[in-house]
């Protein structure tokens, strides 16, 4: 069931476009922002609101790398692996993170706190290696810096439970 509040938000998004079809990606963002990932139910709900066949919504979801069909960690840490960052050690950071957390890519830690993703160029190459935590930039990553970052996030989660 779609909450009334979210349905309202969805209708507002749809009204913002000259043609309704444009709203599908913003709606998927909305659902993912609130639920953390896009379940079959979420896709069916967006399809219903959009008046689109679910297969078409799924097509859109599966095409774009930022849409996730499985839950991620509460803090999803992404590291750029493109050339400029890789030249400055970005891929080592990625390996370091995965070793620290003992997880594969886009796979949450058992406590659900973290997941790690590899992303392509984030357009901040001057501050390489670059990453994002829940889409907020973090840069000039080093193994030590990443360890501190994990500790900070863990403390934040245990503290007030506030988001990133």
């Amino acid at each position, binding site marked *: 069931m779609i909450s009334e509040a979210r349905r309202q938000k969805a209708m507002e998004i749809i009204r913002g476009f000259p043609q309704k079809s444009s709203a599908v990606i913003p709606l998927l963002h909305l659902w993912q922002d609130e639920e953390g990932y896009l379940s*079959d139910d979420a896709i*069916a709900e967006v399809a219903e609101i959009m008046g689109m*066949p*679910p*297969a078409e*919504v*799924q*097509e859109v979801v*599966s*095409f774009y790398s930022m849409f996730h069909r499985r839950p991620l960690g509460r803090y999803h840490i992404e590291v750029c692996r493109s050339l400029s960052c890789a030249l400055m050690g970005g891929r080592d950071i990625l390996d370091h993170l995965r070793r620290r957390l003992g997880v594969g890519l886009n796979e949450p830690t058992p406590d659900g706190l973290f997941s790690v993703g590899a992303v392509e160029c984030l357009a901040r190459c001057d501050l390489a290696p670059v990453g994002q935590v829940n889409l907020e930039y973090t840069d000039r990553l080093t193994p030590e810096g990443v360890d501190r970052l994990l500790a900070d996030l863990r403390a934040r989660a245990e503290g007030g439970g506030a988001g990133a």
Partner: protein
Amino acid sequence: MIHLTVDGRAVEVPEGTLILDAAKEAGAEVPTFCYHHLMRPVAACRMCLVEVERRPKLEPACAVTVAEGMAVHTKSDRVLAARRGVLEFLLAQHPLDCPVCDKGGECDLQDNTMNHGRFRSRYEDPKIKKRKRVPLSDLVVLDEERCIVCQRCTRFMEEVVEDPQLALRQRGAYTAVSTFPGRPFDSLFSGNTIEMCPVGALTSRPYRFRARPWDNRTAESVCTHCPVGCNLAAQERDGSMVRVLSRENPDVDGGWLCDRGRFGYRWVHHPRRYLAPLGRERASRRETPLVWADALEQARAALKAAGPRTAVLGGGRLTAEGQMAARRLVEALGTELVDHRTGALRFATPPGPRARIADLDRADRILLLGVVPESDVPVLDLRIKAALRAGARLAVVGERRTLGERAAATALVPPRGLGAAVEALAEAVARPPAAAGAEGVEAVAQVVAEGERVVVLWSGEAGGAALARLVQALGERLVGTLVTGGAPSAQGAARAGLERGRAGEILAAAAQGDVEALVLLDDLFEDAPDPDLVRRALERVPFVLALAHLPTESAARADLVLPLAAPVEMSAHVVNLEGRVQPIAALLPPPGEARPDWEVLLDLAGAVADRDELVAAYRALPEPAFVAEEEEAPAPPPPGALVAVSGRIPFDSGVRWEEGLRTRLPRPYAAVHPDALARLGLRPGEAARLKGGGFEGEVEVRADDSLPVDSVFLPRGVIGLPAGRLHGLAVELEAVAAAAAAGEA
């Protein structure tokens, strides 16, 4: 005209021609995968790259149109290298499992590789694993690893069917065709994707592993499941039908088949086919096989004795030859008790000009009167959608909504309200245009009145006199009318004059003992308005003769059954809703002693003629004239009542004879508007008791928002549900649980 050269050869083609077609004109075959002549080009596979002088890059011949003075090369080293490259790339991830692939022998990837890409692949890495043997439905199975992402299937569903049940998943090398989890690929047109798949990614489940294309023998035939008459290629292997393919006829089917037509071919091999004439003793119901000579003698004697008191019912499923032979029989008997309209059809012949199917392509207005194209004439649903995309506007008058938001105006009428609505429409069209914002019939009239080329599709079930007035009001603006109702070849039966009386009256007379012999050319029960009347008539008539393929409910009650050959078992002609006479060729011999319909009917008439004579005689007949006939106005149902409306469904009980379509066998159901469902306290999928018109039975409840809130839709042709009889009557629908509780209390 545009002048260009292809491989040095000069050709002249119309402006807008694709390089691909210009090359064909010049005798140069350019290989393709993603290109399909019935869909827009996408230029995705890159197989058709050709060299165009003074252009830096190779161009896709499937998407680039010709220009004056263009010099195209289809066999230059650059082109050949690019083709080899594309094939090498396509084969890199391909499983190369041709020995176990159904497409082997008719696979574009095989053919193009043999013709354009003989080389040793350099690909040695492990291949990307994808899903194999994915059942998308009971009819279609997907092998993702064989898919070359040409998008023909997804484009077909999106562009042609306008119901994108198939879509791509993922991107890059992981791209695959997919449905949404838990949603089957159940489109009525799904089978077309199998035929257009250039590789073995989408294959047919009924055909799976049954044959290699080179083992199959083909006959050109025509589908006889509905009045459209789609052209098809019927194929058999070792005496057994294995599949049906489209035999594109642009004027009739536009290259498509519906799944009922594509997968409805196994009935001819049903173990209960009648193989020899059969005598049946009424009291004991004992059946005795007869030799033809004895059976015919017995029949002729009985018919001769009955003479003009012989009734002949049905005939809309005969060949044109059979319809002519039936005419001879009727003439020989001198009977007027003849009618092919044993179901809901009332008028087989339209007032005013007839339309051709292809007229839809040029229509600027399409008016549907009581017709639901997807159910009644499925392939025309695609044609209408194409016409609407090309700019035509659709107006609908009917008991159910159809084609959704594509309709510019819809007048939803109560059950049995079609005649009155057409009457009102004729009046409205004759008047000056109504103000903007009109609704219902007025809105329909507005859409229709603005048309210059109006094509009407009419069920022929009601509103004949009213339509005649509408035709007059439209005058020159009307292109013509197609009558969609009745049996598949109802138009042929009408032309052959097999409508001298009224089936309902004839049956009533028979039930009263006024008919001495009854010749059944069809199953009367299939869409009988009143099955009880049929039952009483069959019991009362002293001699009932059935010409039949299978033990239908009618044939199972006959005193004598004469076995007929199926359409694929004879060379003859069939007539479609346009009145088009289309040849069919024999693919198989009739089983046992079954014989073509015209032979049997000529023998019964004691006449002699050959097939060519019969066809010539059929063609020489004049067009039947429209007979305006008064229709009684339906009694208004009690206010607030739920009223039944009936209509055809593509998969009716006829599929009980089809081994490939068993899962499509319908159970009796009743569909109502979701709001009405809620009011009745019913949930979709639930069982409910349907009561009305002396009938009481259990049905499955379905939701259908194409209905008015006070209608209940009942499918015709479903055993155990007298939809025709209930049509227009007030009915009750209540949950089985509630009914049980009430019973206990």
